[in-house]
């Protein structure tokens, strides 16, 4: 995909296409939603007005901000811990074959028990609230970062390492200049999917085990049939998912992986 930033030089028809085409389905969706509500007279408890959904952040500003901030804070905290711990353990495992052989199958199995499956046990351990949610995010993202880091380190060609050693580099130099950048494509991929899974896990964990947070908010809204809050919350969840991916990890990928001409594309 070519970036949208460079539209200025394109022929006019092409430029219009780039802006209009992606907008069409959104407009269509809103039109169908709006007219379906009008034509079939769907009650508010099933489907809200289009307008009312977009009004939620403005009419319920305090609640909206409180829940959103709670979720995002948990995500960032849990993800940061998962990223750092996953990277450290992953680099360790990548550098030591024995350690990797030990931790590999275990991490595969733990990955199979997804973060979401830990929610009941986490509630038993931490009770309801932030520590539980953070644990679930960590749990979802850690093994993904770990597995990908191990893989990335393993796939760094030996010759690069040997080349640096022949130049008189120390073990630390090699890790810094060869292993780490060489493993970067996989590490970034692991971080990206970790973040994606982590965010989904936040919502699931909040749904059943928190007093604030977007997941909890939309779950409670269900009891009051506030479909406007549910949809506004769901859209916010989507927007935050996209923003964290595009805003944090896609640029990281561009800075490193793509600039070095290694495989990887910001999708």
């Amino acid at each position, binding site marked *: 995909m070519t970036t949208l930033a460079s539209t200025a030089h*394109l*022929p006019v028809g*092409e430029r219009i296409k780039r802006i209009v085409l992606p907008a069409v389905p959104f407009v269509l969706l809103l039109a169908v939603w709006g007219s379906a509500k009008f034509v079939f007279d769907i009650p508010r408890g099933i489907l809200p007005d289009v307008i009312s959904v977009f009004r939620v952040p403005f009419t319920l500003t305090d609640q909206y901000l409180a829940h959103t901030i709670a979720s995002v804070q948990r995500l960032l905290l849990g993800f940061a811990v998962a990223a750092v711990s996953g990277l450290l353990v992953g680099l360790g495992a990548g550098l030591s074959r024995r350690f990797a052989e030990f931790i590999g199958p275990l991490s595969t199995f733990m990955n199979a028990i997804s973060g979401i499956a830990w929610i009941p046990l986490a509630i038993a351990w931490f009770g309801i609230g932030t520590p539980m949610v953070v644990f679930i995010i960590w749990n979802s993202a850690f093994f993904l970062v770990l597995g990908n880091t191990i893989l990335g380190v393993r796939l760094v060609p030996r010759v690069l390492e040997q080349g640096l050693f022949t130049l008189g580099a120390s073990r630390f130099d090699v890790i810094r200049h060869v292993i780490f950048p060489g493993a970067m494509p996989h590490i970034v991929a692991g971080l990206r999917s970790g973040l994606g899974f982590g965010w989904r896990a936040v919502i699931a964990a909040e749904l059943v085990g928190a007093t604030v947070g977007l997941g909890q908010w939309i779950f409670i809204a269900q009891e009051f049939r506030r479909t406007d809050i549910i949809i506004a919350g769901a859209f916010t969840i989507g927007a935050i998912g996209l923003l964290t991916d595009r805003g944090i990890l896609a640029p990281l990928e561009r800075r490193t992986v793509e600039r070095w001409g290694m495989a990887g594309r910001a999708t």
Partner: protein
Amino acid sequence: MTQANSNGSTIRASTVESEPPTIAIKSLNHVYFDYQSKKTVHALKDVELEIQPSELVTVVGPSGCGKTTLLNIIAGFIKPTEGQILVNGRPVNKPGKDRGVVFQELAILPWRTVYRNIAHGLEIQKVAKEEIERRVRRLTELTGLEGFENHYPHQLSGGMKQRVAVARTWAADPEIILMDEPFAAVDAMTRQTLQEELLSLTVRTGKTVFFITHSVEEAVFLGDRVIALSARPGRVKADITVPVSRANRSWREMSKNDALQECVEDVLELVRGEATASDRSGGAVSADRTHEA
């Protein structure tokens, strides 16, 4: 459109005595628009060319001069900005099974075995199973692929894959075969073998072949005629008839035959200047050397 065509051809049949050339390229121009650099690229300029039945014409030119573009236009994959291609007097506007193509990059299907790749065109034409078997067998023999019928492409060497591509195109039995640097990616030894095999295949089957290469030696070795294209925009710079019959050529002969060696030198001389020439558009080349009358 089809109406006009059939009318046209009937009129031509009654008015023109001699057969039309198999391929006639008329005042062809092609200009690309490059979205990345937002510039136009003049790839082909005023190309005129006729290819007779059963002729093997090779095209040489520096990389980027428009060879692939020319082939794509003849094949019908792209429409030229200006000009026309006539095949047996009929204008070309889309790909057809009368023109088989062997691509620059390998285009056989990884999910078909050697046998089924070669048979593909025949399957499409709904040829009877026994007939397919007969023709595939003959082609595997001619191209040295016996014993590999049940292999998948990834299990073959580069030279073998290229043989499959050639065999597949021949099996479909098109009148014309277009080849785009088919042997560029194989090692030198294998390439010579493939070239000799191709010569005997074309001599035996009498196909009309349009063969693109950037190697002058290959062009002279394989061709009845060698067309030298200029650097971009590609124009026909020279049209040289190779002085030795295709039927009795081999690489052993090639090195000993003075006429062939001289021909190589001539073409090299022409192409050498082009390789260094930058993108000078305009400026008609007056020093066209044409060995043909």
